[in-house]
C-alpha cells in the first residue's frame, strides 16, 4: 500500500513496539489496539498494553506470489502468530524456510523493514517474528 506518511506514522506505537490494548473487565488482549472490547462492548475498561513479543505459530504459509512492495522478499513465510497474552496477529517470519518451522513453534518479535515502495520511496518499518531455538 503506497502513499500516506501520516498513515504509517500514526501506527508507530503498534508497528514498532507491539502496543495494543487490554480489557480489564474480561481480561481480553487486543492487537492492534481496539477501543471497544468485542466481548464487553461498552462495559469494557480498555487500557493500553505493550505485548511481550513472545508467541507461537498458530498457522503458516509460504508466499511465492508477492504483493506490490514485497516482490524482493519472496518466497517468505507468513504466519498467524498467537502472542503469549492470547491475541493473534499476522506477520512475516524471518530467517527461516518453510521446512524448518511448524505450527506450535515459539517465536519472538523482531524489528525489520516491512516494505520499500521503490528505491527512492518511503521505507516502512515494523514487526516481524523469528523462530526461538
Amino acid at each position, binding site marked *: *500500500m503506497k502513499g500516506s506518511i501520516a*498513515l504509517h506514522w500514526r*501506527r508507530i506505537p503498534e508497528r514498532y513496539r507491539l502496543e495494543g490494548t487490554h480489557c480489564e473487565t474480561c481480561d481480553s488482549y487486543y492487537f*492492534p489496539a481496539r477501543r471497544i472490547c*468485542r466481548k464487553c462492548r461498552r462495559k469494557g475498561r480498555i487500557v493500553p498494553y505493550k505485548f511481550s513479543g513472545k508467541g507461537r505459530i*498458530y*498457522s*503458516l*504459509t*509460504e*508466499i*511465492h*506470489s*508477492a*504483493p*506490490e512492495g*514485497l516482490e524482493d*522478499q519472496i518466497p*517468505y513465510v*507468513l*504466519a*498467524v502468530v498467537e502472542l503469549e497474552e492470547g491475541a*493473534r*496477529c*499476522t*506477520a*512475516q517470519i524471518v530467517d527461516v524456510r*518453510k521446512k524448518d518451522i511448524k*505450527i506450535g513453534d515459539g517465536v519472538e518479535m523482531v524489528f525489520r523493514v*516491512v*516494505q520499500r515502495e521503490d528505491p527512492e520511496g518511503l521505507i*516502512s518499518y*515494523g514487526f516481524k517474528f523469528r523462530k526461538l531455538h
Partner: protein
Amino acid sequence: MRQVAIIGVGMTRFGEHWDKGFRDLVTEAGLNALKDAGLSGNEISAGYVGTMAPGSLIGQEHAGALIADYMGLNPVPITRVEGACASGALALRQGIMAVASGIHDIVVIGGVEKMNDLGTAAVSRILGGAGDQEWELFLGATFPGLYALMAKRHMHEYGTTEEMLASAAVKNHKHGAKNPYAQFQKEITMETVLNSKMVADPLKMFDCSPITDGAAALVLAPVETAESYSKKPIELLATDQATDTLALHDRSSLTGIKAAEIASKAAYKKTGLGPKDIQVAEVHDCFTIAEIMAIEDLGFFKKGEGGKATLEGRTTFGGDVVINTSGGLKAAGHPVGATGVKQAVEITWQLRGEAEGRQVKDVEVGLTHNVGGSGATAVVHLYRRL
C-alpha cells in the same frame, strides 16, 4: 412482509472480455434478464448492483447512476452495494428486502466486475482491500496467503490433504466444461492441479479462482404477481447475512467461516429446511479450501470431512449434493461483484430445469453461499420452485 420471487435471469459469458467495458457487460446481462422476464423495462421501480471495486479497477465510481443511465432506466433509483466478493449477494438481499417491504414491486439486481483492464499485480493489490489493509496486507499477506493459512490449519486439525483440495478444482472444471457461460470450459486432472505453480503453500495456481470480467442480472417481483410475468418463478425462501472480524487472525477458528455457518443456520431455522433438503448449491470457492470449508459450514458434511467427501465424489452428480454445477468460481470465473448474482442465476436455471448438460435431476431446493474477503461477510440464500 411479502414473499419474493425471481422472474427473470441473465448473464454474460464470464472470461476475458477485451472488447467489452463495465457498462457493456452490465447492460448485456441486464437485457438478458429483462428479456427472460418478458419485461420492457417500464415496469422496473428500483435496482441494486453489486460491484466491489470499479473505482480502483477502472477509475469509475457512481456505478448505480451509470447503470441506470446506460440501461435506459432514468429516473429509476439504482443503488450500488459493496461487500467485497459478497457484493452480488448483498445486492440481491437489498432487492429482496425492498420488494418484501412493499416499497418496490419490480426490482432489477445486477452484479458486475471489469477486472482485466489492469495487470495481475494491480488487481491483486485491489482485491487485497477485501482484507485488513493495515494489519494483514501491509504486513505481507495476500488473498491466497490468507486462505493458505486456513488450509494449513484445516490440514493440521483434520488431516485434509493437498489431493483433497485439488479434487474440488478437478470437480469444478468437470462441471464448468458443461457450462457455456464459464470462463474455462475444460476438464483438468489432479496432476495439473498438484503440479501447477505454488502461489501460497499449500495453494497452487489451480487451487485459485481466476481474474475475470463479467456480469449477471435478475429480476425480482412479489410472489403474488410473479406468475403473471414468468411461467417458472423461483421463490426466495430465505436471505441471511452475517459478519465476522475483518482480519482472519482475530477469528476464534481458522478452519471454517463462522459467518457462513451463522447465516446458513438462520436460513435453515426460518424455513424449517436443512442441508438434507438441498439438492444443489453454489458455494464460494475462491480457493479450493474455501469450498471444503463451505460444505462443512453449510452442514452438508461434518467439520473436517469436507475434503474427504469431495475426493470421494460426494459433491458431484450422483453424490449427496451437487456443489457448483456452474463450475464455481474456479472454472466459471470470479468477476468479484458478479459472482453472488451468477450463483442465483445458476440455481434459478437448475430449479427451472434449464441447466442443460449440467442439470441435476429432481431439484426441489437450492442454496447459494457468497463470501466477502476471508470471511468477514457471508450471505446465504435458499430457493424453491413456486
